[in-house]
């Protein structure tokens, strides 16, 4: 009696659900690495709809997932050994938390998906397990009202699902908490490194060009000869801001991300100037540009972090952006002056 029934007609109904393995394959891991670098990230999706893990019946649990493949993979790999349904809703290829914030992993979309997939005919019970991070978009009591299904919010991390079920569908306080350890931060860094690559390229081209300035005009040889150090500074500051600062996020005591980035800009500038001595005026000029680049980049990491608020980031930006603009402008003027003396 474990086949789903249509309770009105009492005839077994065919459930259109694709079978999916709880085991990830090499291609899944490769895809994950690529998408972490932003390659094909816009189209890393699974088709929305109902999926089954092993042989679920009409009493098996139903897990709700986003149609971003990383989200879906994280879920299915933690359902190994279980018989379960996964209902993938269309979040436009965006992960659970972001989609909830953007309003695609939301009450109406979830209810629509439940109805479209006739979930009420697939299972006898009226419970669905929704990832906790979807609570930003999913209004549990409204889902119940509109679909008949009661929402149980699962743990934040899919890897806690087994324990969550064993504890009687209860998440411990630790399972409810979003943490942001270095490992997790490291995973997010590549996409952020790639995020402003064109702006970086533009800055590099401009800096390289101005390296050739001379009081006699423009010297190509001077550009090639002295241009490398400023380029190294700019790339160094960019990476300091978006790799070092996020990686060691909790090590630098300032709360403002811009200041965390500024700290690493100072470190980078000092190290580079020790390696390659240049005139004081050029060193200071490049240092100011570094401060501007690194603090701006780290400020951008607020979007990847798991604990910054809109009010907080607005407060930070109001102070930081004028400084960043001023530092960049003064730094650039000093840099050009150093070329003309």
């Amino acid at each position, binding site marked *: 009696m474990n086949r789903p029934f249509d309770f009105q007609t009492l005839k077994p109904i065919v459930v259109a659900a694709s079978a999916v393995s709880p085991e990830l394959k090499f291609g899944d891991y490769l895809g994950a690495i690529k998408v972490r670098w932003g390659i094909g990230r816009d189209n890393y999706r699974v088709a929305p709809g109902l999926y089954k893990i092993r042989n679920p019946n009409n009493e098996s649990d139903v897990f709700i997932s986003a149609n971003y493949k990383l989200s879906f993979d994280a879920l299915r790999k933690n359902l190994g050994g279980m018989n379960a349904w996964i209902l993938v809703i269309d979040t436009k290829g965006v992960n659970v938390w972001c989609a909830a*914030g953007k309003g695609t992993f939301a009450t109406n979309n979830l209810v629509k998906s439940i109805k479209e997939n006739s979930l009420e005919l697939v299972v006898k019970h009226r419970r669905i397990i929704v990832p906790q991070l979807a609570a930003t978009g999913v209004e549990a*009591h409204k889902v119940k009202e509109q679909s008949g299904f009661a929402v149980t919010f699962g743990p934040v991390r899919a890897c806690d699902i087994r324990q969550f079920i064993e504890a009687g569908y209860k998440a411990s306080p630790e399972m409810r908490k*979003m943490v942001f350890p270095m490992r997790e931060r490291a995973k997010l860094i590549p996409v952020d490194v790639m995020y402003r690559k064109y702006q970086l390229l533009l800055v590099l081209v401009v800096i390289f060009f101005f390296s050739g300035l001379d009081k006699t005009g423009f010297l190509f040889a001077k550009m090639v000869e002295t241009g490398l150090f400023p380029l190294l500074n700019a790339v160094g500051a960019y990476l300091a801001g978006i790799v070092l600062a996020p990686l060691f996020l909790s090590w630098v005591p300032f709360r403002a991300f811009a200041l965390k980035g500024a700290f690493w800009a100072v470190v980078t500038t000092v190290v580079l100037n020790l390696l390659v001595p240049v005139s004081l005026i050029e060193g200071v000029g490049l240092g100011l540009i570094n401060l501007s680049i690194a603090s701006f980049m780290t400020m951008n990491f607020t979007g*990847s972090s798991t604990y*910054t608020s*809109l009010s907080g980031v607005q407060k930070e930006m109001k102070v930081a952006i004028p400084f960043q603009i001023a530092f960049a402008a003064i730094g650039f003027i000093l840099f050009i002056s150093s070329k003309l003396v």
Partner: protein
Amino acid sequence: MQYFKNVSTLKLNAELCKGCKMCITVCPHAVFEMVDKKARIVDVDDCMECGACALNCQYGAITVKTGVGCAAAIINGILNNTEPSCDCSPSEVKCC
């Protein structure tokens, strides 16, 4: 990890609270606790204004100005003259 002090717009009206504990369930930063069958804010500075608690409080006891704590989103908002919006959507890369 904690962001700035005294910036979160989270407010809890204990009089409206019915003690359903939903806020405790959905909050990813353990901002709430139960005291005498009512929710209470432990440390408002832990709040990231994600809005999960306010949305899931069916008694309307919680208010918070929600949004993404993301500099790129705020810049996008200023450039496009809209609310702060992260371009998680297909056409662009950055996500909150």
